[in-house]
């Protein structure tokens, strides 16, 4: 995990000398540089390779408050360690993509952010995760409230087997977010609008949520997550079960949602990560290998492992 050295390019061959006459000319003109200057050391590193324990690079996203902050997070399933010392920040107004081969721990990490790993009896989470500065792993944190603030959309669309209206209204209802029926209807309508589904379902809100197509179901799940006014939305491979058109619609939706929520998305599809995110984190064998601007990760990554993975030389 060394930072790749930016080697100063020093010239090792002398400048070839022209014939005597030219040399005389050149001399008459003045000393020409026989040693060209070193190329300036590369610009201020805009990305750190790997974020070391509890320190973060100044260059990238400097001065911004992180929405969620993970510090040295490790996850164990029984004896097996699935995540090793992952430290990362998720920002408002940014989509952060987690990429990496199967089994590298990206989904596990995502599930740490809203403590869904609690439902797995053998899972043990170490390290500190903060949401707006509060430690979410402490026993004082109300998990139910956390999961309302940090919503999740899953890989396979899983609407409740209830009506479309009920699907979206369930969350606000159990959290007591609305005080009257009309208010609840308003919340449902605005959530469905924000999820880009309103026009397609406004006439059939009482139909079962499972009667929709795959892409619509996933948008319904997104609307359901939005309805409780989260601050962060986690998406675990949301488009892997969808066709390209549905995928494109969801990606456009992510783009629209970006301003309102901090979004973290796990994806197997590198092109999708490239299209949708502004920050990308590459996981490998449970470690965070590289994190940086998406545009740079995909044009000039710093780590050899990252390069190998995104160019298809992995495995």
């Amino acid at each position, binding site marked *: 995990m060394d930072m790749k050295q930016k080697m100063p390019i020093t010239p090792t061959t002398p400048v070839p000398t022209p014939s005597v006459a030219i040399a005389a000319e050149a001399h008459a003109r003045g000393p020409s540089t026989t040693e060209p200057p070193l190329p300036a050391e590369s610009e201020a590193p805009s990305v750190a390779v790997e974020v070391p324990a509890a320190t973060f690079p100044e260059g990238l996203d400097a001065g911004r408050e992180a929405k969620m902050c993970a510090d040295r997070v490790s996850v164990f399933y029984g004896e097996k360690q699935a995540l090793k010392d992952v430290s990362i920040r998720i920002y408002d107004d940014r989509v952060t993509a987690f990429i990496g081969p199967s089994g590298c721990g990206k989904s596990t990490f995502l599930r740490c952010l*809203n403590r*869904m790993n609690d*439902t797995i*009896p053998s899972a043990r989470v170490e390290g500190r995760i903060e949401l707006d500065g509060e430690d979410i792993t402490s026993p004082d944190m109300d998990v*139910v*409230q*956390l*999961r*309302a603030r940090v*919503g*999740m*959309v*899953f890989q*396979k669309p*899983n*609407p*409740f*087997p209830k009506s479309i209206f009920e699907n979206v209204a*369930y*969350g606000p209802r*159990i*959290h007591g977010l609305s005080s009257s029926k009309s208010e609840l209807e308003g919340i449902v309508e605005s959530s469905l609008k924000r999820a880009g589904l309103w026009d397609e379902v406004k006439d059939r809100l009482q139909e*079962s949520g*499972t009667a929709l197509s795959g892409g619509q179901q996933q948008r319904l*799940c997104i609307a*359901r*997550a939005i*309805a*409780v006014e989260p601050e962060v939305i986690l998406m675990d491979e949301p488009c892997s079960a969808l066709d390209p058109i549905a995928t494109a619609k969801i990606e456009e939706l992510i783009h629209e949602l970006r301003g309102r929520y901090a979004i973290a998305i796990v994806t197997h599809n590198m092109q999708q990560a490239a299209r949708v995110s502004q920050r990308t984190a590459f996981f490998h064998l449970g470690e965070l290998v590289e994190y940086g601007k998406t545009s740079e990760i995909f044009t000039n990554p710093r780590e050899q492992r990252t390069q190998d993975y995104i160019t298809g030389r992995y495995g």
Partner: protein
Amino acid sequence: MSSVAPTRWTDESMRKRLRRRYAFEGWFRGLGLAAIGLSVLFLAFLLVTMAAKGLGGFVHYEARLPIDFVKSDLFLDPATLRGPDATQTVAGADLEGAISKASVSAYGPTAAQLFGDAAVARLSRAIVANPDLLTGQTTLWLPVASKVDITAKDKGDANSEALVQELRQRHALRRNFNSQFLTASDSTDPSAAGVWGALKGTFFTILVTILLAFPIGVLAAVYLEEFAPRNRWTDAIEVSINNLAAVPSIIFGLLGLAVFLNSMNLPRSAPLVGGMTLALMTMPVIVIAGRNAIKTVPPSIRDAALGIGASKMQVTFHHVLPLALPGILTGTIIGTARALGETAPLLMIGMRAFVAAPPGGISDPATVLPVQIFLWSDEVDRGFVEKTSAAIIVLLLFMLLMNGLAIYLRNRFERRW
């Protein structure tokens, strides 16, 4: 790429193998059909036998009886029969004697035993309904006694045969639907015996059973499946419950006897105790069915609910239970149907007594239909044979009804996820 020769599908050896495969499958299918056929035969045999024996119980013969109330020695005043105690008053009178006298005068001395308790009951009801009958004479169709009934349906001793012959000749005998069978309770006289008391008793017992077993069973299943930690204790509980479901029912009867009757001194032979005993028996079945039904709810639904901040309780009661309900209902109905047909445990807690009046509530002495059948099958009187089979038919119909209800409920609650 590969050095393996492609499969030759048209080879003779391949064809032979294919033929053998198809032959085997044909054989297998034939065996399956044969098994189904045998089962259907058994079922048909049962139903046909029952029907043949029992349908007779639903009809009985009635004979015409002209009665002159003025001439009979009934000391009844129509005026006293207009109050609420009419039935009591009538019961005090010697209706049996009056009927006997009237039938003898109509059909001769052999007709002294022509009518039985059923006729008495019918006459009593007629008088209470219309006290003015007592002022004159009238002709009534009354159900004949059991012996005559059987003679008319099948055959009997010489005297009865002659009587029946005579009645037939005078067109004084007719066949009619035996509504008594369904509205009367148990009686020593077969002609007056009915299943109503047993039906009511069954109803109360099952009510108690369901009210006790269903909530406890479902909640236990929910707890064991959703909330309980997985350790040795819960494993032991699971094994115990599975075994309980297989325990012979008479042991539950013993338990009921020892605990409910002897220790807790609850009323003997009451649907309350019967229901509690059967509830003990049904609960494991519901727990097992409930657990299986809850297991089949996909984890994605739970994840989805957890993901938007539902607590464990909300996940379980808003999402998991409704989806598991069809399975739970099926299990409940299976358990209840089994409980319906149980005789042994109820015999142990004393529901073997002869109960002439239908129970008014869950703490009145009662009997249930299977026990009634058992008791009647023990009777010597030939008249009870067809009653037993008829009661079995009633029981079967009752079970069909319950199963139909179960299927209806299950379909209604079935949800696709």
